[in-house]
């Protein structure tokens, strides 16, 4: 899986079959994978936080703006919005001992992703979210599958 293009925090990319994209070490971050199975084109955005504040610098850092950005990019490259479906990976709660001093960012990220996708009319067809484990995810533009790897279990394909 070393041939996959790495998408770091607050980055996004679009690829066509047989391209591969990946996000490594997702904790509370969420990888949103949008895919058009007919055109075999897809994209991933690696978001850090739920909602973009006013005057923010990077759209891809936030769920609400990042998903819209990715969808626009996909549409401009030939994907059909009506065919696009989503998979969500990440949003874990890594340090539950710190709940009193900060909110559960992972959970908020997932909630905002779902809200934004619903607004845009995109269906979430699979997800591997929340929990307390970090995940790496590899995305195939050939078949729209996501392979999820953790430090503690067998790979899972969704």
């Amino acid at each position, binding site marked *: 899986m070393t041939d996959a293009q790495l998408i770091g925090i607050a980055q996004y990319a679009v690829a066509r079959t047989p391209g591969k994209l990946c996000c*490594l070490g997702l904790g509370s971050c969420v990888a949103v994978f949008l895919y058009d199975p007919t055109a075999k084109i897809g994209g991933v955005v690696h978001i850090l936080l739920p909602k973009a504040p006013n005057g923010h610098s990077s759209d891809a850092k936030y769920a609400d703006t990042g998903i819209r950005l990715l969808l626009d990019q996909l549409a401009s490259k030939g994907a059909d919005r009506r065919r696009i479906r989503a998979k969500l990976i990440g949003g874990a709660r*890594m340090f539950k001992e710190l709940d009193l001093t900060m909110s559960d960012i992972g959970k908020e990220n997932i909630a905002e992703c779902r809200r934004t996708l619903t607004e845009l009319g995109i269906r979430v067809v699979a997800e591997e979210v929340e929990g307390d484990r970090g995940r790496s995810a590899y995305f195939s533009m050939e078949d729209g599958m996501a392979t999820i790897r953790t430090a503690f279990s067998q790979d899972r394909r969704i």
Partner: protein
Amino acid sequence: MAEDDAKRVLEIIREFANIGAGNAATALASLLDMELVNEVTSCRLLPLSEIAEWLGGEEQVVAGTYTQLCGDLRSGVLVVFPPESAKTLVRHFSKQDEVDLSDLSRIQTSAICEVGNICLCWYLVAVSKMIDTDLIPAPPGAAVDLLGAVLDIPLAALGATVDHVIAVHTLFRGVEQVFEGYFLMLPENKMLETIMEKMGDSAG
């Protein structure tokens, strides 16, 4: 940050890093029941986006202990043991030859995290003494997991207000074992300014 400022901050970091590492080594020597010498091998002021790479990549399994200062001066504080060092530590206190970080018992995870907690606190004591200011850490959280996942929370919690990470690499050398630890501080601007101000005379 201007180059001169960055240079001064680095001098200050090196000073507290040496004291903090010395404190941590003494505490760990007693906890682990071994002789330890320490050596601060590297101090950096890194942009947030470069930490994961500096620590060896997002996908390795590390032991991380994290807290936030919640007093007047705010900062994230993180101690990370890279994979081999985490294994060395677990092997040592559980008296096992083979250790798999993906398959630690609860008590092993808890122990390695406690080592991180102790280091974290002693580094903080060094910072606190140097700037002559009380620092109030929240009780820390800990995880043995992918580095990227461990870094997510500090980045998410402070990414909007913090640009740079103070990063210190320390080598702890015993008679038979060697392990290394990273101390990372993500100071909000006010914290960084206070460090500069309080240390201005001695570091100038």
